[in-house]
């Protein structure tokens, strides 16, 4: 029942680039879609030690969406854990990462494939 902005179709594409799992999200990550992104990220972490969340096509995120990214980031916080990176979201979304103090704790890449070890 979440109203959606017209033209903001949501989709998640998951594919592997070498040993890197890439989860590419398109649309908005909010209350309605956060669980789907969370589930795909969890699946990616089960398959690979390196996961990239491609946010280039994400037009909006709310607290629920930010929580998904933080949870993924926290998996890598213990040092020995898996590697996690994002491809930079559009500025107005990336601004949220700055706002919550997430940016300095993230590995940000330009090309998802470049995250490969």
């Amino acid at each position, binding site marked *: *029942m*979440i*109203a959606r*902005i017209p033209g903001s179709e949501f989709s998640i594409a998951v594919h592997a680039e070498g040993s890197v799992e890439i989860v590419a999200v398109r649309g908005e990550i*909010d*209350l*309605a879609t956060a669980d789907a992104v969370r589930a795909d990220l969890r699946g990616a972490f089960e398959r690979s030690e390196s996961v990239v969340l491609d946010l280039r096509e994400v037009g*909006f995120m*709310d*607290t*629920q969406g*930010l*929580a998904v990214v*933080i*949870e993924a980031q*926290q998996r890598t*916080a213990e040092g020995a854990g898996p590697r996690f990176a994002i491809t930079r979201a559009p500025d107005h979304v990336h601004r949220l990462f*700055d*706002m*919550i*103090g*997430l940016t300095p*704790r993230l590995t940000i890449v330009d090309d998802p494939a470049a995250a490969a070890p």
Partner: protein
Amino acid sequence: MSDLRVAVSRAGAGDDPGRGWAAAGAALLAIVALTVLDASWDEGIAATVVVPPFVAALFASTRQTAVVAAAAIASALLSGIWNDNFADAGYFVRAAVVILGGIFAVLAARTRVEASRAEALGEQLTAALSNLAEAVVVQDRDQRLVYANDAAAATLGFPSVEALLGVAPDDLTARTAFYHEDGSPLTPEQYPSRLVLAGEDVPPLCIRAIDRETGEERWRVNKARGVRDARGETRLVVTVIDDVTDQKRAEVAQRILARGGEALSSSLNYERTLQEVAELAVPALADWCGVSMPDRHGTIEQVAVAHSDPKKVEFARSYSKRYPSRTSDEGGAAQVLRDGASQLVADIPDELLEAAVEDPEQRELLRSVGMRSVIIVPMTAASGRPIGVISFINAESGRVFTETELELCEELGRRAGIAVENARLYTERSIIAHTLQRALLPPALPAMPGYSLSALYRPAGEENWVGGDFYDAFAVRDGWVVVVGDVAGRGAKAAALTAFTRHVFRTAAQLHDDPLDAVPYLNKQLYDRPGSALCTVCCVYLRARGPDAEATVICAGHPQPYVVREAGDAEPVGRWGQMLGAWTPGEWTRTSTTLTPGDVLVLYTDGVTDAHGADGRFGDERLRGVLAESSDADDALRRIADGLADFEQGEQADDTAALAIARSRPAAEASGDQLGSAA
């Protein structure tokens, strides 16, 4: 149908052809014999050959008779040779007699053959009609039955065709009550046979027929056609009657269950829903339908009642008010409620009424209803516990309930029971949710002497559990703390986290020497909680500084608050800091600003800026725009509410919370500061 055609074509063959040939052969032999006799005798007896054609006409076909007649005529014409009397008048007379006789014989044969053919056809048709599964009756101009087949006798409830044909037309209609499909009575003027006799074309008509004596209900489709004579006048009416009782009952049952199910699942307002269900049952299933449920005090309350006549509904309502039944009553609804077994009284004897109702006045009222047949079924919850009863009553229609209806009624009771139970559970849960939600919000904003404070809170969705947004305002040792926060997650888990966050923050702020130390403390508490416990807050520590106030702001993953100074533009205050519960340790920048009287500080959650409308998100710029020139706390929030109302399209997607605070004008402040420091 092909059988019928074969039968008819056989009928066209007329009599046994063997007998016809025998008769024709005998007649021919007779002609030969008479001719020989005529030739050997002096006296001419040629005229006697006229007899064999008539004999042939009695038994043989038209053609055979014609052959015999031709032979007779030939014999008569040729008799002049051996009688040598061509010139005699007697010859001509005899020849003429035989010729005319022959023609008559042929005509007679044809008439006889046709008549026998028609008779055979009639017999075959009658036999065919008798064997038809469809009931067929034929009425004459006076509506008397002149023909009925076996199926008709069976359909109309007679042991034999003879019994049916022996009944006078008036008696026939008197023993049955006819209704239209919609339950309205079918008047004699509307009988299809009458309309056909009046020369009208009548489409097939579905009729509900109720035997007045047995109360048996049958559904029939009557198709009536007129049989016209040569002058175009309707002489007979042929009516084909289809007994569609089984289909109709299945249809009614299906409709009631389907529409009832729809109604029951459509709304959580079960009293209205039960009324809809009751209305579905009348008049197709019963004349009356009522739903009753016990209340806490043991009174069985009528929650729904339906009858096609509104006056009777009124009657039922006032009756149940005047004579309320109680769960302790014997028999009836109370009994069904107690043991959960349905009751079917097919034909209510008057003694039952006498025994069940003591008050003569009440008995008289009940008697006036003319109840004939009743079904009471329990409405059972999923556990099987009866939570109410549905009563179905037949009165004026004279119908008598059978096991078939009982099954349908019981099914309806089961479905209604589950729906009512669900609605009740939902309502209860909804009340619990709202109670918890209220508990999670400050019951009311505290009176903050020296400040004016205003709050806006809109959880997303009417029946939503508490959203993740919260606000609080409380006194600390030397001032006040106001906070707005947003907890990640949804449903009960988020609500629990919201409560935790708000109370930890409040307690920590009140116990720490520096109330804003509550921020790192809360961060640690959230971080240490098992699972993900993330939250953003914006908090402001307010201290009086003479007529002004010093506001120290911390943003932890939260949008900066805006300050509107002297009704000017809205400017953000504070620095971004990390979200709470994600990482530890953490540092948060404190930003202080002075609020002079007339300045308004506005804290909000992203529900405001993320609200969407035709032009995308509400956004920071729009928020700054509506806040500009805010004159006080109330005004600022009214501007936000109005701005969102104008902007938003569709359903509100996210919780929205906002808090506005302003330093009061000095006049109202002096006593306030004392109170503030006392707290």
